[in-house]
């Protein structure tokens, strides 16, 4: 069995290092010298033996008392080998935590039983969900401090479950333990008579490492093409699926088709006919196209990757400079590199507070955002939900990797939201955005739709949403764009310029779905006149209060929302 990579995350001081130290100590994975050294420190300073110190490889860390960088430690049980990535909890070191966690097979979120879920507990859980780590376990630590109370454990467990649910994450398991006392780490404890689940070590050994990659579709990103002799060898690592000599393949973005004639090898004993996910291979194909790095090879019958010069992605930003609209970065996805310009920031989420902002202009360090990129060339890629390896990327700003991201979808056109179009005429509306009051942050939020939606004459429109409920017949008056849309029988009836609009006695609303207090042709003309006379935002507010109902067709609902 191969090695399992695991990561421990959680709020600073909730006990990650202690639990890891305990695990290593109790599985006898540490050289005696290290244990002696920590014992000596304890003796000299007159303090307790700190399991957390076992991990500190650098002097600086011991002085600061926090972990500077991720450390990688190996240990093994009877079942298999493990690689622990110790991700730091300190605020400034987000990038190290991400570096470490990005490659993990499973993650353990440590939560202090007394302190409960804290800022970084959430932030780390959020990032884990963003990094696509599916197996998330929760360790409720320091149970000794709460008298091993089952009730306290349930409370903390419920809190974290509710939070994780908002991220669409279901924890694999929630384990109560004490790092200091060693309860439930490698041995069951009398103190947890009410707990029947396994210990940490039993849980670890049960994690399945079945490689889901193997059975999947072929994805082989071209890493390089060699011509050491008369053959042209295409080199790369198979990210998913498998291939063999004779297979018909397609090479994207162009989609050229050929077949595999040979697998290259160095010594006779490395000779083989097939290869599968994880292997670094060299293949030779029948037709010598001009293949190059960055292209993606699939089997001919496989579902092809997406091909586009625009994509929508979730991005976490670690750069010193802000990521902002209009700026260009080098985007590296599998082996592709392409210049990517930020076309739109749909929204940002502060990774610490999880406060979101719609339609932002920039992304700050430690922020996460949903972004539309315009790429200089068309590239082949996948949606992260389908294939992780070809659905994630990093962004390079200058010389530095400043962000990472996962592809949500290919975007065929510029992000425009909801558009009503009639030939040359085209109007944007926010009719189907949701408005609600966030009970946790205590503020009103407008959440935009993320897909482009186009409505033309004859198209049916949705009339019911979470926070709106439109009649079957109404007119939309778009003051700023000087247009109108008539809806009849929940279908688009006509779209035109405001100057051509003929008033009818029918419900009216603006582009956001706010009802209009106008009931005659005269008052409609007066309404237009007043709109044209507006000179400042104060007048705009007065005008709005005079003419709009917030809640004629909309209902402000209460809601909570942590995520994009």
């Amino acid at each position, binding site marked *: *069995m*191969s*090695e399992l990579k695991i990561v421990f995350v959680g709020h600073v001081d909730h006990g990650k290092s202690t639990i890891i130290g305990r695990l290593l100590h109790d599985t006898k994975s540490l*050289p*005696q*010298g290290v244990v002696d050294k920590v014992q000596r420190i304890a003796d000299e300073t007159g303090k307790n033996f700190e399991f957390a110190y076992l991990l500190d*490889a*650098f*002097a*600086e860390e011991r002085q600061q008392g926090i972990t*500077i*960088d991720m*450390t*990688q*430690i*190996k240990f093994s049980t009877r079942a298999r*080998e493990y*690689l622990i990535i110790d991700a730091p909890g300190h605020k400034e070191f987000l*990038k*190290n935590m*991400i*570096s470490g966690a*990005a*490659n993990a097979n499973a993650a353990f979120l440590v939560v202090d039983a007394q302190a409960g879920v804290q800022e970084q507990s959430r932030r780390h859980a959020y990032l884990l969900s963003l990094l696509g780590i599916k197996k998330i376990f929760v360790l409720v630590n320091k149970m000794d401090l709460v008298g091993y109370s089952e009730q306290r454990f349930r409370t903390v467990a419920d809190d974290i479950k509710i939070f994780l649910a908002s991220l669409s994450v279901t924890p694999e398991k929630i384990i109560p333990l004490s790092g200091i006392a060693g309860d439930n780490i490698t041995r069951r404890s009398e103190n947890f008579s009410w707990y029947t689940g396994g210990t940490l070590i039993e849980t670890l050994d049960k994690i399945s490492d079945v*490689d889901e990659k193997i059975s999947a579709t072929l994805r082989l990103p071209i*890493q*390089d093409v*060699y011509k*050491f*002799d008369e053959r042209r*060898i295409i*080199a790369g*690592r198979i990210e998913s699926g498998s291939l063999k000599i004779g297979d018909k393949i397609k090479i994207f973005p162009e989609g050229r088709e050929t077949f595999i004639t040979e697998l*290259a*090898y*160095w010594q006779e004993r*490395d000779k083989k006919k097939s290869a*599968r996910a*994880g*292997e*670094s291979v*060299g293949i030779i194909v029948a037709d010598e196209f001009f293949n190059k*790095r960055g292209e993606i090879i699939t089997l001919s019958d496989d579902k092809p990757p997406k091909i586009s010069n625009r994509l929508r992605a979730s991005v976490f930003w*670690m750069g010193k400079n802000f990521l902002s609209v209009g700026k260009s970065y*080098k985007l*590296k996805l599998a082996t592709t590199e392409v210049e990517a310009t930020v076309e739109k920031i749909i929204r940002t989420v502060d990774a610490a507070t999880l406060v979101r902002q719609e339609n932002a202009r920039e992304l700050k360090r430690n922020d996460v955002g949903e972004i539309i990129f315009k790429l200089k060339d068309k590239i082949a890629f996948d949606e992260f939900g389908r294939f992780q*390896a070809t659905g*994630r*990327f*990093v962004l*390079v700003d*200058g*010389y*530095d*990797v400043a962000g*990472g991201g996962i592809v949500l979808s290919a975007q065929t056109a510029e992000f425009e939201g909801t558009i009503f179009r009639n030939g040359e005429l085209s109007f944007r509306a926010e009719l189907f955005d949701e408005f609600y009051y966030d009970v946790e942050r205590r503020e009103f939020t407008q959440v935009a739709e993320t897909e482009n939606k186009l409505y033309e004459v004859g198209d049916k429109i949705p009339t019911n949403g979470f926070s709106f409920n439109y009649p079957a017949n109404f007119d939309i008056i778009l003051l700023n764009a000087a247009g109108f849309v008539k809806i009849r029988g929940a279908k688009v009836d006509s779209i035109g310029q405001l100057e051509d609009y003929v008033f009818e006695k029918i419900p009216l609303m603006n582009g956001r779905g706010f009802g209009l207090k106008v009931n005659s042709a005269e008052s409609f003309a007066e309404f237009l006149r007043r709109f044209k006379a507006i000179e400042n935002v104060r007048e705009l507010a007065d005008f709005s209060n005079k003419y709009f109902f917030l809640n004629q067709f909309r209902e402000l609902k209460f809601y909570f929302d942590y995520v994009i």
Partner: protein
Amino acid sequence: MNKLDELEAESIFILREAYCKLGKLGMLWSIGKDSTVLLWLAQKAFFGHVPFPFIHVDTLRKIPAMIEYRDRVAKELGIKLIVHTNWDAVKMGASPALGRLECCRLLKTEGLKQVVKKYGFDGLIVGVRRDEEGSRSKERVFSERNAEDSWDYTNQPPELWNQFKTDFPKGHHIRVHPLLSWTELDIWQYIRRENIPIIDLYFSKNGKRYRSLGCECCTGKIDSDADTLDKIIAELKTTNVGERAGRAQDNEDSYALQKLRREGYM
């Protein structure tokens, strides 16, 4: 795939990435077990046509058998080998009498810096492993060195999803570490599996063997009866003596190697 297959595939991926993305490339070959495994992996990665030279920084203080082995294997595999010595330091009389750390700095660190400058390398492939000692455990796969060859380990870029640091200012270079995830035990198991010819100093003679190779003056033997690969592997599975325990320079002070590495040591 078992663990050795995975490690092999990953190292090959890294070597190919270095060749594709870094301009002028060289690989350090210290004659020891790790860099000999690396040499083997390079042959596999490029199907026997390794497209860059190997570099040996010769302190003139190496165990003589190492030099014989070096020249013989280089000839057999037909590899391009650059041997470099910091002659200025040798003439000045660099020796452990100046202090072991100073001797290392002059003959190895400075020697290495000289080759990098002389050939204008953008990338240097080095066989360090994370499990060797503390400061190496903090390394990245692609690790930047500035114009003074120093390493800023507090400010390292994240390495996400096999996307390595391939953008850097002119004059800086990248240390590439394809063996970072390997352990000492992995190395020996791979040597056994692949039947890699390895220098015989590692095998026990008269109850002693070298566990790590370096300069004759500063490298001690350990007590061991392991005179075959199987016995070395069995021994490693039970030992709790550090791998570099025989390396005198490390024991000069607790942070010796970290200090050396900050200045450019491998």
